[in-house]
């Protein structure tokens, strides 16, 4: 059970949040111009990293805001939390 530092509310128990998969996958602006393969890449392909991973989370039972975190999947350590639209503070 993580403690997640919601950028809007502060530190809260993981049970208040829901995970939203890999971060920084931008929905194509012109989907109609993509081939099946390109669209499939956006639609289906997600990384499953052992190590540092960028993830979307939603404070579902709190402020309902979406934000990003940088988490090490090996030990669940959260290295950074940042708002949607912001650049990740860690490479």
């Amino acid at each position, binding site marked *: *059970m*993580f*403690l997640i530092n919601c950028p809007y509310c502060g530190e809260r*128990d993981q049970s208040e949040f*829901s995970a*939203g998969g890999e971060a920084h996958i*931008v*929905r194509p602006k*012109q*989907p*109609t111009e*993509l081939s*099946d393969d390109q*669209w*499939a890449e956006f*639609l289906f392909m997600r990384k499953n990293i052992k190590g540092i991973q960028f993830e*979307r989370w*939603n404070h*579902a039972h709190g402020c*309902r*805001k*979406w934000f990003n975190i940088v988490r090490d999947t090996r*030990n*669940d*350590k959260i290295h950074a939390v940042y708002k*949607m*639209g912001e650049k990740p503070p860690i490479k």
Partner: protein
Amino acid sequence: MNKNLRITNNKFIDQTSRISFKFDGKTLYGFKGDTLASALLANNIHLVGRSFKYHRPRGIMACGSEEPNAIVQVGNDASMTEPNTRATEIELYEGLEASSQNCWPSVNFDIGAINNFFSPLIPAAFYYKTFMWPANFWKLYEYFIRKSAGLGKSPTKPDKDIYDHRYLHCDVLIVGGGISGIIAAKTAAKNNLNTVLIDDKNILGGTTLFQENECFKINNSYSNEWLKKEIETLNSLKNLTIKTRTSVAAYHSYNYILARENLTDHLDLNEKKDKIRQRLWKIRAKKVIIATGAIERPLIFNNNDRPGIILSSSIKKYIDYYGVKCGQKISLFTNNDSAYETAISLSNSGVSVNSVVDIRDKTNSLIVKQAEKLGIKIHWKSTVVNTNGYKRINSIEIMKLSDDSSAVVGKKIKEECDCLGMSGGWTPRVHLFTQSGGKLKFREEDNVFLPDKSNLEQISIGSCNGDFELYEVIKNSASSTNKFLNVKNIDYENLEIISSKEMDKKNIWLLPSDKPLGKTKPFLDFQNDSTANDVKLALREGFKSIEHVKRYTTTGMATDQGKLSNMHALGIISETAGVKMGELGTTTFRPPYTPLTFGTIVGRNVGEFFDIIRKTPIHDWHLENKAEFENVGQWKRAWYYPKENESMYDAVQRESKAARDSAGILDASTLGKIDIQGTDASEFLNRVYTNAWSKLEIGKCRYGLMLNEDGMVYDDGVTARLSENHYIMTTTTGGAANVMTKLEDYLQTEWPELDVYLTSVTDHYATISVCGPNSKKIVSKVIPDLDLSDSNFPHMSFKNAKIDKIKCRVMRISFTGEHSYEINIQSSYGKSVWEKCFEAGKEFNITPYGTEAMHLLRAEKGFIIAGQDTDGTITPVDLQMNWIISKKKYDFIGKRSLYRSDTIREDRKQLVGILTEDPKEVLEEGAQIVADTNKKPIEMLGHITSSYFSPNLKKSIALAVVKNGKKLKGKKMFVPMENKTINITITDTIFLDKENKRLNA
């Protein structure tokens, strides 16, 4: 009670307060402070169970949570009985009833014991190998295996006890109240840290509490006296919370810890009533100090499992703490110094110690010398090669070890005894450390795995960190705690400590015997009954990984998770396979550390508190009118309203007919409602629905279909345009929360430039749907001021109106295909408006109908239910709803996926209608549809998604998804059932009123 087995000068047991209890039906007596195990031993009862596989007699072996044999069933009440509890952890109380678990029919005569004679035939994985074939015999085998295997009886009635959950936050949590935990707790609390100290026993102090030995002194006092004073100072510290009878079940990342506190288990039967039995603490600690101690290891030799063979430190606790002699003539067997402490304790209490058998060469530590001074005989460099006695040990056979200790030599000495204490060294309790994700390192000199790296704010101190001697425990616990907490407590710096130091170490995982390995029974895992031979066999058969060997032999897989056996299993694998212990790695310890009852896990979340129950404002009316309810998500929805003795089928038929014949009324309050506002509201709807929204006039409604990005139907509902930049969207009942989340996701992450605000208003409004040919008349009685003419108020429009002085919104929309109105009004008026409509409708026989009739009515019209006729694999094209997909819009969620190679396949499953050849035959939802019953294997073409008998059409109707269904209209097919094959025809999905005449009737 056997008087000879109790010593009287005991500080911990109140020998003036006698307690009666029952074991295996027999009434026995013990004292306040006893555990069930100590009381049984005081009654000279060692035999408490039968072993799992061979049904060998087994006795109490330990004194704590690591006990493998004394697993008992407590209580015999159908709602209160609890299996798999350890007699060593049950505090004795007046009225306790316990029974042996792993025996049938009784512990003294056990049918399964015959397995012992056949044991050469029961090697590792016997059950897997023998009962594998034929597969359908398994049901039969399982019955007998389970019956004789002794997994305990589960209660058959609901648990009457109360359980509780609570949160706890602290700066420092210390797990374990032995000497090192006490040092840490004092250090933390004295330095103004909010500290919690928990221990699973009823009092603090660990084993030092009863360590009264010349070889262990602090500032000229016995270690126990010194510790007693430390405990007294703890009680005066303000920042410290002490929780005894509390055991940590799980240690998760982020220092999140679950601990179970026993509140009433130790109370007399009549005092337990109406009190909370156990509490689960959910602890968030900034820092955690693990001080969980170590477990003594058994020794692995032939017949090391007989009743009366007990861990040496447990014998010491029974005599020094409980005042109970485990025997009158005790022998000890060891590979380290601990057994000498036991020997001295026994000797001081007047129990005759036959001898100590020590596998080491002569050693001269302080404690060994003291034992010798007391005249205790020692067999150096010797081993026990066998034990005798069926239901209780009566003798041991001792032989000398060869020079290299790989074999035994010389003459066999037989020594009579009624108890054998064994000590194979110590295993640090690193379970919680590894649960929390910590990595272990191996220390060669005494073969222990120790805490190494952790990512959490935690340390391990004391013997769970590999410090086994008093001096080291005190010094290192104090300095590690200071460093970890960044404080300076000097209380422990200038102590004068006398502490016997172990000078020689020696370890043999599997002790040699005078008999060949196949002829011996050296048990490794006492609870699961696997021997060292089983592990060796597994290795011969090619298993290499510890995890595989463990599963194949079931070593370490019992309820004790191999607390006693894991190290030996690893040691034997290491020796046999020639791999270093440190490289083998250990098995993973998983929570809970000791078993938890389900009651503790669920706490108060039972019965009506199991999940949130949502009720509509009209709920009470449904109750008064005898509705049966259906769960839709968390909602309770009126399902149907049976009249006296009416079946569900009859009620639904009656309700469905009435709605079309005259008038029906439905509580639709549960439909999700989302208020959408902002200058980009229309653009937003354009992007989330498949159809176009910009041109929808204010005052009008439109049906919308929402897809996932993969093109599959996600949700549907009607949205009304309240003003230029204001809409109200309805969603399905079950989809409301998910739709809201999904829309917020897109708004916040993909389209933050849109000026749109979403508010969930589901609970703000009650929604009352009045439908049927007489609906107009009824609504005009309820809202006389509202012009209901088709020209003023056509289908798919809404009007703002007032009922008395209360504002409401009336929508002319229909899910049944009938002329209908949906009145939306502030929730608190829901019930009174419903009653008003009902009253107004009485002259038209207005009939309340539930969700089942609603489903039937919409199926007659071929309207889909998202989630019933769709399942996440159905596109709008599959539903033959191409009309709802805007061709003009550049993009909407899921658009691109509608022409992926897979979604444009012609032979996808498509929605069709189904009629049965026999109009009375109602199909089962989920039934498969086939075209050819002769070709084997039969190709499944699709399945029924909705099926009803239509009272309005007087025939069976169904919706289904069928491969290439679009092109199969009129084709005859089959639905094969268990006992018959049903002939069907593929039809159009609309069964009633294709021309939509009834909407405007």
